[in-house]
């Protein structure tokens, strides 16, 4: 993580995916399932503890065209805020 603090901007979250405790590849799989449940422009929060998610979620967002608005950590887990394309 580049920084360990709360997101500077508060986002209005439409869906939260709790992938805490899940190992690779589950956080990415659950992220992919989650994105199908929201509409274009809506925002999803993914919470994960797996260290692999630090590279996997940003790379997933890049490859699928969804926008990673924020990546942060704190309270023992990582948070990814993603806007659906």
């Amino acid at each position: 993580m580049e920084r360990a603090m709360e997101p500077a901007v508060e986002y209005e979250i439409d869906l939260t995916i709790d992938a805490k405790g899940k190992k690779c590849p589950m956080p990415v799989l659950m992220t992919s399932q989650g994105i199908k449940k929201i509409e274009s422009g809506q925002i999803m929060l993914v919470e994960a503890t797996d260290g692999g998610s630090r590279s996997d979620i940003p790379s997933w967002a890049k490859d699928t065209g969804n926008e990673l608005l924020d990546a942060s950590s704190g309270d023992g887990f990582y948070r990814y805020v993603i806007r659906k394309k």
Partner: protein
Amino acid sequence: MTIIAWSGDLDRMWPTLILGSTGAAYGMQTTIFFTFWGLFPLVRDDVRITGTNAMTKALAAMNRPGMSHMKLSKLQMAGAGAWMMKKLASDQSVSSPTELIEMCRDLDVNLWPCEMTMELLGLRRDQLIEGVGEPVGAATALSEMGRSQINLFI
């Protein structure tokens, strides 16, 4: 992406299912073509014996079908190795092959059994788990590989 799942070994099928489900999560059209030993894990766990004659029945007896009954390619140690591997995975919340194949189905991975080897090994469609596609031939698999940017033989 197309993966040819040739092996029924736990330590080959596991990464096959990890890569297959992750490929679909990445938005790739993903196909897993199951052939030879790779077909046996697709058999439902409750089907003990498959086969249409003495030889194919003996094959199933010596090589128990089902996703929960896969063996390690090394350090199998009469079952202790596979058990330990699954225990380690479960302790660390790594998803089991059964969970991963469910994920594959959910993420629309094409799960294609090879028609010719199904007949050769005496496996019937109704003995396979739900969500498996119609059995197809080598040409269909190759045609899909021709359209794929990533092709793996595991």
